[in-house]
């Protein structure tokens, strides 16, 4: 039922999004098939809309998967070194292949994201004190170390400008031909849907999973691979979007619980809605200029994150 409202809301926001921009496009322009209006819609507005929806959905689902397989509500690609590793991978690919193609960047950032996340999971397994707050803090620390490494090499090789452009997520650069890589995350999102029951069982812990005959390690590894690919794809095309994978699954968990089969739809829809709303906001606050969406998401997201932290304390 709630999903219906989320879907309706998404449609409304999508329509608003299409008609917001420096170049005024009205509904009548499209109906009369005015060349310039159609061109803007097809080349810029719709690609932007699609990329926001895909990124919003897939990053939220990434967070959901991470939280399930680490059994910690505050772990997400941003707090588990995944995103930072993806960025390091991109810097490395630029160092070795001065004009790295998108595919190169993709391959490198994916392998680094995968390695970084596995490193985090290995550390997680080793530490005895599994405090709810301690684990994401550890992930953030590890992420910062990796991020500093990336920045160091970026300075050494004069790549700091390109490296920083991925720091802040931004949809302003999205035009036709530069976002299609994002489509790669769609099959992975479908895979996540198919695995939703298995991720739920994995979320009950290794002992529980073995008891129910689930191949725990395999499911965890598949989860990490899905998260790493999606994260690197999003970082390459859009940039870093903080907090999204952290707060969206947490909000859904409060009212829908953690049965993924039930909550994964709501998570995907809410993620798309949230990101789209932030994007619209980032476009109208200092109209006709734009604030990077990463900034807007960061500001709003950190407040929601704080609220979730305090709520958990008192609960």
């Amino acid at each position, binding site marked *: 039922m709630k999903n219906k409202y989320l879907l309706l809301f998404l449609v409304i926001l999508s329509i608003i999004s299409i008609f917001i921009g420096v170049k005024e496009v009205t509904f009548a322009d499209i109906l009369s098939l005015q060349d310039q209006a159609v061109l803007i819609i097809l080349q810029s507005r719709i690609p932007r809309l699609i990329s926001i929806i895909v990124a919003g959905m897939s990053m939220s689902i990434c967070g959901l998967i991470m939280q399930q397989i680490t059994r910690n509500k505050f772990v997400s690609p941003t707090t588990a070194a995944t995103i930072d590793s993806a960025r390091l991978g991109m810097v490395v690919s630029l160092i070795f292949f001065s004009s790295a193609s998108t595919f190169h960047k993709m391959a490198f950032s994916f392998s680094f994201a995968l390695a970084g996340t596995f490193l985090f999971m290995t550390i997680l397994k080793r530490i005895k004190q599994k405090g709810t707050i301690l684990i994401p803090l550890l992930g953030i620390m590890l992420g910062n170390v990796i991020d500093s490494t990336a920045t160091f090499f970026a300075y050494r090789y004069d790549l700091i400008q390109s490296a920083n452009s991925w720091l802040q997520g931004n949809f302003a650069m999205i035009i036709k031909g530069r976002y299609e890589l994002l489509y790669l995350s769609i099959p992975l999102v479908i895979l996540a849907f198919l695995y939703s*029951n298995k991720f739920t*069982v994995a*979320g009950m812990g*290794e002992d*529980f999973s*073995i*008891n*129910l*005959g689930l*191949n725990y390690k395999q499911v965890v590894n598949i989860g990490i691979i899905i998260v790493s690919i999606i994260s690197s794809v999003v970082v390459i095309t859009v940039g870093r979007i903080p907090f999204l994978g952290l707060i969206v699954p947490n909000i859904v968990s409060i009212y829908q619980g953690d049965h993924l089969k039930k909550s994964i739809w709501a998570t995907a829809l809410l993620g798309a809605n949230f990101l789209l709303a932030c994007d619209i906001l980032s476009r109208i606050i200092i109209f006709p200029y734009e604030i990077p969406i990463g900034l807007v998401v960061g500001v709003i997201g950190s407040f929601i994150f704080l609220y979730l932290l305090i709520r958990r304390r008192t609960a």
Partner: protein
Amino acid sequence: MIEVKNLTKIYGDKRVVDNVSLEIKKGKITSFIGPNGAGKSTLLCMMSRLLKKNEGDVYIEGKELSQWKDKDLAKKLAILRQFNNINIRLTIRELVSFGRFPYSEGNLTDEDWKYVDEALSYMKLKDIEDKYLDQLSGGQKQRAYVAMVIAQNTDYIFLDEPLNNLDMKHAVEIMKILRSLVNDLGKTVVIVIHDINFASCYSDYVIALKDGRIAHEGSIDHIIESSVLGEIYDMDIKIENIENNRICIYY
């Protein structure tokens, strides 16, 4: 029947479980007792594939543990441990429905739901089936997990310290349920238990471990004996017969 042969677990240079051989008879409650660090839980975990063994074999109905497929074994044997550390937000009904995971991978058929409903009513959880686990008391949670195991419909049910953190009322409730699972549904139950009086009143067979080895095993009459328990626990334990139960006094 479950047969354990020369089972051994080594941590560092300590043999936590040392060359243990035993048999679990069908249709009985078997209790593992013994002091802390005797290797009871380790033994139970190895017998149920939660823990890798260093040496030895476990035969479940004649087939070695490693020969079983994960999914088939999950229909034969269920193990529950550490009830209290799950922090996933599921309703009781959702949790119990995962007991059918080995059969349907989460896409439950009408028959699966029948098992879920039966398990819920068996554990008297029907009224609160839509409550989330984090809203439940310790006793209710425990019942929910046992309901999941009932829905899993295995012949063998292993429980690691099922009475942990329960008050007397709920502890008795759980033990009575285990008793009726054996008597009414013909299940085979193996528990690790610390309270020897609960072991004495509710189990059919007792296996006492000490320092990773079996110190004694046998029926209640044989094990709940001053001399036997005194040797296992290194303390004076008096035994009184009260209403046909052998009660230990050691306070």
